[in-house]
């Protein structure tokens, strides 16, 4: 298997092959790695590398992929270098319209802006409550509120678009 693994903004070519012995042959950044990989269960690996032992847990949340190693959560993205699609997808992030999404499920408590309002970066837009805690979502950039997609009192899921700034 050949893939591009993106970790902390760095894209690294990875080649993995399972040998007949059950071990893996690993190449990262074009370099061979003498990594001894053992799958403890479908979401836990024991990796020995130069004698050091690492317990690695798959730690994805929905589409947000990550592993947990040495008590740190490390998000990653994987691309198939043969697939053009994945590259296009990766480029799509920078456009002008910017949705503000709920980071967690909750209830809409207050709207601080209306459609058409001009907003500064970091200006408060909307207050969401969950588990008795209120969170004010702030504008990711300066612009105009082109759409408000929710009403006060509504329950929203994580990832729901609340409003759009352009």
């Amino acid at each position, binding site marked *: 298997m050949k893939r591009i693994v993106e*970790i902390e903004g760095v894209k690294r070519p990875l080649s993995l092959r399972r040998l007949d012995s*059950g071990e893996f042959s*690993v190449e990262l950044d074009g370099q061979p790695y003498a990594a001894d*990989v053992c799958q403890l269960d479908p*979401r836990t690996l024991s990796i020995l590398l130069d004698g050091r032992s690492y317990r690695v847990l798959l*730690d994805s*949340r929905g589409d947000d992929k990550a592993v947990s190693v*040495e008590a740190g959560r490390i998000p990653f993205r994987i691309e198939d270098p043969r697939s053009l699609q994945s590259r296009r997808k990766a480029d799509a992030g920078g456009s002008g319209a910017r949705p503000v999404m709920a*980071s967690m499920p909750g209830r809409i408590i207050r709207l601080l802006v209306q459609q058409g309002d001009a907003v500064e970066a970091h200006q408060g837009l909307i207050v969401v409550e969950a588990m008795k805690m209120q*969170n004010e979502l702030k504008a990711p950039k300066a612009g105009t509120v082109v759409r408000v997609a929710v009403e006060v009192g509504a329950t929203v899921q994580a990832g729901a678009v609340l409003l759009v700034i352009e």
Partner: protein
Amino acid sequence: MSQKIKKILIANRGEIALRVIRACRELGIASVAVYSDADRASLHVAHADEAYRLGPAPARESYLRGDLILDVARQCGAEAIHPGYGFLSENADFAAACEAAGVRFIGPAASAMRMLGSKTRARQTADAAGLPRVPGSVQALASVEEARAVAKRTGYPIMLKAAAGGGGKGMRAVRAEAELAEAFTTARSEAERAFGNGDVYIEKLIENPRHIEVQVLADHHGHCVYLGERECSVQRRHQKVIEEAPSAVVDADLRRRMGETAVTLAQTAGYTNAGTVEFLVDQERNFYFLEMNTRLQVEHPVTELVTGLDLVHLQIRIAEDQPLPFTQAEVHLRGHAIECRIYAEDPDNNFFPSPGTITRLVQASGPGIREDCGIYEGWTVPLDYDPILSKLVAYAPTREAAIDRMLRALGEYHVGGIACNLGLFRRILQDKDFRSANIHTGYLERLLAEPAAAPQQAVVAEVAAIAAGVFELGQQPASSAPAAENGSSSNWKSAARQEMLRR
């Protein structure tokens, strides 16, 4: 005369409900769970001997419905109700309703709760008992003018606090007279909204105080003991984050003086069962009465570990009218205990709550580790209640060893699927000021204002990259997988998939 309780209804949910259910089982007492629609799949329902539905998810339609809860108690024949903490635990009207219905409320009598439940009334009781308390008013302030007069007498800076308060709501620090009027108005309206009672009073603001509290236990035969102190100075927005026992700044003499003060207050109010007297301790180790919590507290396990006692067992024995089975002289503290409150909240995202499904739960164990947990793998944390998931507690002979043991346990622990605050504890427990016990109630906010330095080793990124690839290989659906590079690879993949099916 003592009378054995045979069945207890637990009017709560989550880890504390399970804590009480376990105590019941250990004492041979039948346990009755109640649940809202959001909690049918919760652990306390599955672990109790009996379980009955209360109502819809919102607490005011379920866990706060004292009338429904008493109905259930009557119908299933429960002779006593344990309220846990939160919900109805400090509701004197509910305690009185239990008394009227002939059901024992496992806590103080309604009368004692009324004397100590309101902060202003508790301050009056403290004055009557001659306790040192934080200077300020002992009655609700009728007007801004009265507030201004009291503040001047007390001396700035001062705190405005809600009489019915808790959790930092209706609380405002005021550093100069110019700020007072506005702070008074906002504190009143916040208190009105949060507690249905806008009464506020004034306390002198103690600079960089420690929050240290004393556990007391009183039976119905006039005996009252103190079980040492807990230090809860690591707070965020007036919510405790880490608690420990004993406090690093309390020596035997101060412990005795604070303990005897707490017992005096309890006895003045005719208090029975478990309770906690909270103090502020200033930098000269003067202590001031703050308020009393008339219930079992979240952080009671640290006291259990250093005293070797079981507070819930003792609460139940007291409710059975049994005398305390030991005297003050027989209470000995040993070692050090630390508790971390594991919450479904994201320290990297302004501590916003993170309800959702727990897709993975790897727990810590081994020497000196206790966990009081209310969750399981596959459970969905509901939106509707406090985000506490579990309490991880470490015990060791010394404070340093307990800190290092907790760090060890946190390294084993993992919650997947939702964000939680495990990383925050690691940061605190590695912090030099925390380790040297150089803490006060403003400590954590100050720490959080500093950048969290986490230089990652290059090799960890390499391990992560390799692991990412192996997981990817194992999770590809067979149809979209590229042709296997060699013969065994596809076998391995199908074996991995079978393994996932089998689990």
